[in-house]
Each structure stands twice: as C-alpha cells, then as structure tokens.
C-alpha cells in the first residue's frame, strides 16, 4: 500500500464520469494528461447545467429575478475563488478567459501604464527559461513595444532555476519579474517566497503563473508574508477540474487600481460620455463585456470540490503518485526524465525521452493501449531547447490517478520499446 494516496480514491474516481468510459476496442481509459486539462467531477457538470436550465440571465444589467440569481451565482463564484487562493480581498479576483488572457492583461496594461509603473528603455523584465509560452510571449511583446529589455533565469541540469545569477538579474532596472510556480514541463516547484522577496527589495512587480500549482498545491495568499507575496497570480479554470473558457487573475488591489484598463466595453465603466469615460472600480474595471457566466459558476463549484477534498490531501496524493511514477519510469531501459528526480521537488507532470523512439510514436502506441499522454513541446520550447531536445513525452497525474494507471503506463512503454524493436 502506497502512503499518501487520497483516502477512498475509488469513491473519488466515481465523481468523474469520464473515467468510466472505454476507448476503441473496449480498453479502459488511462488518463495521464491532466497538466494539459483536468477531468471534471459530476458536481461541476451538474452546477453548470442547473445554471443554464434554471437561472440563466445576463448579470448585473438585468433587473429581474433571473438576473439577480445569475448575478448572485457569478459573484458567489468570485467568493469561492477568493477563498480557494486565500485572497486578502474578494474584489482582487478578476475573471478572464484563461491564464493566457490573465497574463496578457497584466503585460498589456503595463504597456499602457504611466508614472511609476511605466516600462521603457533601460527597464528590464525578468522571466525564466522554463516558462510556458503564455508567460514568455506577452513579455516579449511588452519589452519589444516599449524598448525595454527581456532577461531570464537559466536552468540547472537538474531542472531547477539557476539562482546563482540572481544578483545580476534582479537589479534596480528590474520592473517586473514573472515566473511559474510549478513548471508544466519539468515539474519543478520554484521558490516563490525567495524570488518574490528579492524582487520586492528592488521595487519590482512580481507576477506568478500559478496554472500548474493551483490544481495541486494549497495557495494561501493572505498567509504569505507581504514581502514574499506575489503582486499578481494567474491560473486557468480547466486545470482545477473546472470548465474551459474561464481563468483567474488575482492582483494586489492597489496595484490593479493603478493599472489602466485592458479591454473597454460594457460593465467596465463608471460613466461614458462621447468626450471620454471613467472606469468602474476593480474587479469590474477589468471585466469588459458579458463574462463567461456559466463557466465562472462551474469554476466556483470546482474550487469548492477541491476545497472539500483539501488541497493538502491532493498535494500528498500527487506526491505519492509522482514518486511511484518516477520509480516505475526508472525501470524502462533508455528512458530519461527531464527535471528533478525527487518527487518532493516537483509537481505531477513528468516529461521524458526514450532512446530510439520519437515522442509522437510513443504517444501513438500508448494511445492504442488506452493510455493518454501528451507528446510535443508542451508550449515550452525554450525549456526543451535548454535540454537539447526538440520534444518529449509527458505523463501528468492528478487527484484521481491510481498506482495501477502508472503500472499501465510503464507496461505500455515496455510494449512501445518492443514494438519498435528496441529489445
């Protein structure tokens, strides 16, 4: 018996109807692609259906009972998300389309900012070589447009940030430091508190991409030391057992209030005259137009579900499964894991290479055995380039993953090697 697994895992799995389905040829589904998107529990599906069946109306602007119910559902989703990340204030939670939009919102608003927040020639934005493209490209756009300089932390051979250069990289010129809490490719958990403190010492704004950490680790912003608390975090609903089409930006209230608006339109205004407009306070200032209402309501149900399981218990489960998977993968000849080999230092996404078989071919053979993994660059091309590979295969577990599914993966990898006659 492996220690740390979620209690009553078989009952938890029953919450996820898709895990019951079979694939071509009657094979059971072994879903190991949760870092890409997680599966949804019945309660999320039911909550969304119920909203559409019984409460559907536009929010804020509808003066009828349904409008009030819909607004109430949407705003209570904001409360649930605020509780999920321990946000100091509920109005600091902004709904976006996904994590990518949240990161673009920050980078674009900074491009338009004036005064202290303005980014220009001589200023630097610092990212890392392990970022998802969504946390690289917006900063490239910002620095290119404003004549600022983009810099980045390199990586060690073990897949950690190379912090030996931190004194050269975080300086008086640094305006923004943006980095991922947990890498979607290497799995690495980064030292958020340490980097944030250093960045704050030089007055930089800290943006943390929490897309991979929010699903699998407790986040408690209010409990963090203010010096060590990021100024902005972003994550995406579909990886925390919620639906697609909804993401979250949390930002320190006084920072958000200083940032110029991102998208203009309905809901984000205070008053509009032909000569000019004034803007609503946060969060509505950054939520132009009709938001993804039912998606937000679904996300509220999702984070409630995770909260009931307990993020601590989810983290323990991921840790146990990841350790078990690392052991299993180590038995496959010619297999090399990219990233930390100690489960304590990483999340549940494990990217690897197998000598003599291309990741596409591995994923294809695995799929034929019902094992769903991802193959490619996982939107982290620079991190792959750093390790001299063009692509990799990635298995990613989640709270519903069982040791038996890891066994199925390892067995399918053995089969892949024999299929390609690698002995």
């Amino acid at each position, binding site marked *: 018996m492996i220690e740390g697994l979620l209690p009553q895992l078989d009952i938890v799995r029953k919450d996820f109807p898709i895990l019951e389905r079979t*694939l*071509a*040829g*009657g*094979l059971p589904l072994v879903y190991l692609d949760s870092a890409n998107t997680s599966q949804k529990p019945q309660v999320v599906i039911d909550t969304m259906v119920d909203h559409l069946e019984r409460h559907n109306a536009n929010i804020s602007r509808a003066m009828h009972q349904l409008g009030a119910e819909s607004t109430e559902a949407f705003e209570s989703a904001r409360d649930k998300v605020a509780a999920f990340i321990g946000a100091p204030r509920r109005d600091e939670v902004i709904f976006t389309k996904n994590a990518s939009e949240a990161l673009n919102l920050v980078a674009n608003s900074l491009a338009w900012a004036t005064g202290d927040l303005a980014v220009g020639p001589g200023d630097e934005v610092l990212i890392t070589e392990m970022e998802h493209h969504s946390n690289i490209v917006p900063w490239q756009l910002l620095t290119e447009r404003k004549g600022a300089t983009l810099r980045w932390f390199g990586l060690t051979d073990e897949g950690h940030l190379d912090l030996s250069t931190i004194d050269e990289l975080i300086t008086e010129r640094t305006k923004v430091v943006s980095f991922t809490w947990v890498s979607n490719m290497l799995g690495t958990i980064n030292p958020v508190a340490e980097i944030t403190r250093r960045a704050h010492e030089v007055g930089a704004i800290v943006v943390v991409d929490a897309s991979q950490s929010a699903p699998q680790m407790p986040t408690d912003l209010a409990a963090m030391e203010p010096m060590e608390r990021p100024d902005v975090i972003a994550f995406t609903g579909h990886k925390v057992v919620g639906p697609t089409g909804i993401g979250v930006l949390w930002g320190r209230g006084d920072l958000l209030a200083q940032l110029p608006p991102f998208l203009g339109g309905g809901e984000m205004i205070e008053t509009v005259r032909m000569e000019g407009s004034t803007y609503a306070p946060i969060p509505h200032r950054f939520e132009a137009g009709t938001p993804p209402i039912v998606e937000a309501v679904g996300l509220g149900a999702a984070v409630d579900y995770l909260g009931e399981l307990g993020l601590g218990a989810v983290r323990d489960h991921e840790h146990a499964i990841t350790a078990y998977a690392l052991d299993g993968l180590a038995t496959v000849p010619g297999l090399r894991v990219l990233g930390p080999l100690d489960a304590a230092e990483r999340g549940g996404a494990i990217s690897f290479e197998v000598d003599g078989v*291309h*990741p*596409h*071919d591995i994923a*294809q*053979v695995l*799929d*034929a*055995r*019902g094992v769903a993994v991802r*193959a*490619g*660059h996982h939107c982290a*091309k620079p991190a*792959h380039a750093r390790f001299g590979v*063009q*692509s990799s295969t990635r298995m990613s577990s989640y709270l519903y993953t069982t040791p038996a599914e890891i066994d199925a993966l390892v067995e399918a990898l053995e*089969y892949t090697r*024999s*299929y*390609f006659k690698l002995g």
Partner: protein
Amino acid sequence: MTNAPGQDLDSLYQEIILDHYKNPLHAGLRDPFEAEVHHVNPTCGDEITMRVHLDGGVVSDVSYDALGCSISQASCSVMADLVIGKPVEEAMAIHESFLTLMQGKGQVEPDEDVLEDGIAFAGVAKFPARVKCALLSWMAWKDATTQSQGHSESQPQEAQHG
C-alpha cells in the same frame, strides 16, 4: 505480445515506413541548390530544412536535415526518393496524388504506380493527428521547388557555411 485491440497500429506503422525511418534515403544537406526552406510543425515542433536543385526542368536533387517522428522522417525519405530524377511537372503530380491520399480520411485508394513506397502511408490518413507529420516534408519540397523555379534563370547558389 499481441497488438492492442483498439487501434490498428500496424496499419499506421507499415514495415516500409519503419525501414525508411531507420535508413532514410537522400538525408543530409547538399550543394548545389537554388532554394532552401525551413518548415516546422507548430504543434509538435518537428522541423525540416530542405534544399532543392533543379536542372533543366528536372528535380536533380532534394537534400534535407529533419528532426521528427517516424512518420515524418519516413515520409521525407520516400518523397525525396520518388521525386529525384523526375521532371518537375511529374513530381508535382506525385505531390498532388500524395496530398489527396493524406486528406482522404482513409477512403482514397492509393495508386502504386504513382506513389510506389508512398502507398504505405495510406494508413496514416486514418490518424488525423499524424497527417501533418506525413505532409511536413512534402509541403517543404513544394515550397522549395516553387522558389527554385523562380531562380531557374539564375545560377545555383552555394551554401553559405564556413
């Protein structure tokens, strides 16, 4: 070990494909050439650099440096072997025929007289995610050949490496 009952892997990974993958024909970059192109598959990152040399309306050489899966590597090898030595017009017709096969969702009957080893890719058409792998080199070849035709009046260039 038996094959998975679910999907017919063997229809995808024909022996011919695995042979070309292990021993690709015409690999490497060579001089002379009129055009060099670089194509990538943005979803998976597979890459190919390809050079085409035309001589009197004939595809005189196709040389390449490719990184990718078995399907994309084998497809490149088969393609190069098929078109080298053929008049451009005939090579373009082969290209067209391969494209039709790949886009046929497994419903198109391949013509062995035209496609030779290329018929082994008939099974790939049933795996939508892999069609792009099979087409990467063919698209690169068409691009390079069209560019080479633009250069046909001028002299072939030499590589600019040291």
